[in-house]
């Protein structure tokens, strides 16, 4: 079960103060200690991007004073309108973007691309076009020195789990949009990373598959005590899967709300449809999001 | 046509060997205005190899070229109407320079004895099949040695042999005399054989008796007869000027301009030797016998398959060598 921390409070606090131009001074020592036990923590993270125009340039404030902690074995979903900085936040955790302000930590260390135990699933499939589906799933295992026979076996199992048995030898160009995403999903699951960063992993899938693969994700998460940071546009999906839903808002990108989801575990995603608490939570968050 | 010689400047392209002493008279003709005086606007086209110039001649992009009789004979056999209009050299052009005298005990015995020392050595040539290559083989042949008793190494062209000698790639440098002199003066080696002083055997002497001359085609000659006449006249005047001791200062200046001293070589020694040797080589007369001697040698060595009709290869207006 997720450990509720100061993260919620600070998130809600943030939502109440209008996103001003001046902000708090350096973190207190207490805050720093809090971060040490978390799987992922952001404190006062800010990120600008430079956009060149005909006349000069202008700053896009992609993230503004973001404070968020994701505890070990916590499943946190992030929702928010397009362009509010969700991917940027994932990129910072993955070490692909170095934030300009504030601090980020993954397992207590500064994020670094290629860090062990962190799996990042991009919003685009990023399959190698010269590899077949199964060899794409094997890719991470291969890079980590898993023996051929073992990785082939594991990849075959995962492909079957995402509903793609029979397509082992298909190249990317021979797969449909959703199939590509499923191969990418299988590739992400193939490594037993303790932290999963997922950017709209089910974005190209139909609702049935979403439920099926959501349950697969939950079972993997529960088995291996992973921590998940899950970006999605589907609020149903966010509530059904997560321990907490973080609502972000744009201009500048910031955290507007941090809402715990007290639905019991293990969850049967199909039966949630008839769970009234689930629908109440949905209405609540929907209204929070609608206040943009 | 013949009337065009009246024009103040008739375009006339002459192919010469870039930076080679063999081109000296052409350089004199341009810088002392001998061609202009005859109404010819001469452009010197510098080439590195005879066959290239032969091709240019066949296309009409040059009017006359410096060439050796063996190249001309080859061309003739391929159906090309080569014709010589003026001589240029009367002795074999080249010298043999060796890196290490100690390897050549017969160096003071002269030809043909020295050739025994050349056996088994590496001798430089421009390209296989070139005139210099052929003359080298004639030297061996004349000394009663098989033509393959030395290894002939093609080094590309004039000048390059000197560096190859220095680097030990070859044992014997066989080259036109300015690079040979340069190599000697720079201390890269010593002269083994100089065919302008000592006899190099009947065949080589005969074949080299007009080792370079000004050649054109019958077709071109028919078209621009007056221009060629003017050119030959100019060659005569150049020869007279060059061999007149009164002009030695001006000649030196031309040599300094067109035949620059190689790096690491003492200029005064180089130019004085050039000036001293020069008169022994140059002549504007055409030696009919040299053409025939060349043909015989080429037939003997298999470079020509059958005899070539040489009677038409000399222009009726060319100045001929009077028998010695």
């Amino acid at each position, binding site marked *: 079960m997720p450990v509720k921390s100061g993260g919620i409070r600070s998130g809600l606090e943030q939502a109440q103060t209008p996103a001003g131009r001046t902000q708090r001074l350096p973190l207190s020592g207490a805050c720093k200690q809090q971060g040490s036990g978390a799987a992922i923590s952001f404190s006062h993270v800010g990120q600008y991007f430079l956009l060149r125009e005909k006349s000069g340039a202008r700053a896009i404030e992609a993230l503004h004073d973001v404070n968020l902690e994701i505890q070990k074995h916590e499943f946190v979903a992030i929702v928010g309108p397009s362009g509010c900085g969700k991917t940027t936040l994932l990129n910072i955790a993955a070490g692909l973007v170095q934030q300009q302000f504030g601090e980020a930590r993954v397992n207590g260390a500064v994020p670094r691309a290629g860090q062990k135990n962190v799996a990042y699933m991009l919003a685009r499939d990023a399959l190698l076009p010269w590899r077949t589906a199964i060899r794409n799933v094997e890719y991470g295992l291969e*890079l980590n020195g898993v023996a051929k026979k073992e990785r082939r076996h594991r990849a075959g199992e995962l492909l079957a789990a995402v509903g793609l048995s029979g397509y082992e030898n298909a190249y990317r160009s021979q797969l449909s949009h959703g199939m590509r995403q499923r191969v990418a999903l299988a590739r992400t699951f193939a490594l037993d990373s303790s932290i999963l960063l997922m950017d709209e992993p089910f974005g190209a899938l139909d609702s049935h598959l979403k439920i099926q693969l959501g349950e697969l994700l939950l079972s993997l998460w529960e088995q291996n005590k992973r921590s998940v940071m899950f970006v999605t546009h589907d609020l149903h999906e966010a509530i059904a899967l997560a321990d907490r839903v973080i609502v972000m808002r744009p201009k500048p990108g910031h955290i507007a709300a941090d809402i715990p989801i007290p639905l019991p575990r293990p969850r049967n995603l199909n039966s949630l449809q008839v769970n009234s608490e689930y629908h109440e939570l949905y209405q609540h968050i929907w209204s929070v999001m609608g206040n943009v | 046509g013949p009337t065009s010689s009246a024009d103040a400047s008739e375009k006339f392209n002459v192919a010469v060997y870039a930076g080679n002493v063999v081109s000296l008279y052409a350089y004199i003709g341009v810088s002392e205005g001998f061609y202009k005086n005859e109404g010819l606007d001469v452009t010197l086209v510098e080439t590195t190899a005879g*066959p290239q110039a032969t091709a240019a001649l066949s296309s009409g992009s040059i009017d006359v070229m410096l060439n050796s009789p063996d190249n001309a004979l080859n061309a003739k056999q391929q159906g090309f109407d080569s014709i010589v209009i003026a001589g240029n050299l009367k002795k074999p052009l080249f010298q043999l320079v060796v890196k290490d005298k100690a390897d050549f005990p017969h160096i003071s015995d002269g030809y043909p004895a020295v050739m025994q020392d050349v056996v088994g050595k590496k001798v430089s040539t421009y390209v296989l*099949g070139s005139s210099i290559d052929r003359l080298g083989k004639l030297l061996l042949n004349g000394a009663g040695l098989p033509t393959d008793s030395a*290894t002939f190494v093609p080094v590309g062209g004039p000048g390059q042999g000197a*560096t190859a000698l220095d*680097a030990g*790639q070859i044992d014997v440098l066989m080259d036109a005399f300015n690079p040979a002199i340069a190599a000697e003066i720079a201390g890269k080696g010593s002269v083994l054989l100089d065919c302008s002083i000592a006899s190099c055997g009947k065949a080589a002497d005969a074949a080299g008796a007009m080792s370079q001359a000004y050649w054109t085609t019958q077709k071109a000659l028919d078209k621009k007869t007056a221009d060629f006449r003017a050119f030959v006249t100019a060659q005569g005047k150049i020869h007279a000027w060059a061999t007149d001791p009164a002009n030695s200062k001006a000649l030196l200046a031309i040599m300094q301009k067109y035949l620059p001293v190689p790096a690491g070589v003492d200029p005064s020694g180089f130019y004085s030797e050039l000036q001293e040797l020069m008169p022994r080589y140059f002549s504007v007369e055409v030696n009919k016998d040299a053409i025939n001697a060349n043909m015989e040698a080429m037939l003997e060595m298999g470079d020509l398959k059958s005899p070539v009709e040489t009677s038409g290869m000399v222009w009726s207006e060319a100045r001929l060598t009077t028998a010695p």
Partner: protein
Amino acid sequence: MSENTMAPVAIDPDAWVRSQLRAASAQRLRHGLSVWVLRLVVIGGALFLWQSLVNARVLDPFVVSSPQAVGAFLLENLGTGKFWTDVQATVLATLIGFVLASIAGVVAAFVLAQSKHLHDVVDPILTFFNSMPRVAFAPLFVVWFGLGITSKIVLAFSLCFFIVLSGALVGLTQVDSDLNTITRQLGANRRQHFVKLVLPNALPSIAASLRLALIYGFLAVVVGEMIGSSSGLGQQIAYYSGVLRMDAVFGILLVLGVLVSAAVALMRAVENYFLRWQ
């Protein structure tokens, strides 16, 4: 569209697969045949034109020889041992120079692709050396590396290296950023990143530059042999053009053309094998 496009949907997928595969191989055969027929027509036409123009005296056989004369020369010489020794010398020098340059070129491109700074420093210096006419250096190479095979290898290397470097750099620096991200994220070390992502991604560019390099490698060796050598096809060209035997020169150029074309065709086959996913 005619009625038969509205025929019932195929009855048996297996039969369809078989028919597709059959059709594909028939198509390949037809394609190959038509391509070869066309090629032969083009080549035959060119030869016929050449011979006719020579016969009609529009072209001068002294300058351009004739297909007949070239054929006679080849018939006479292709059987001789000397000829094959020369072919061997040329091919060997080219292959050694080419292989060394390919490896060095790809490695250098890899190193330069790592660091923009290094690339910026080194690039004009490389351009500078690349821009010097290497053929003018051939005599120097002869002095430094001898008249044997080494100087030709060096000359071939000095041309091929820059061609491969330039082509490989284009390929190596054009990696899709998503594939890059995912590969780093999955824990690839530098070597793996290169071997599993950057290299396969750059293969089309590298392959094209290798083909070009092979061609220029032959060119370099032949020119090197023309300038100074005791064996090789280039030396033969120099010899025969010295004695104005254009039939022989063309004959040897023909042999060179066939040799290089065969080598390039072989490379293309290898390339197609590696790029069959496309």
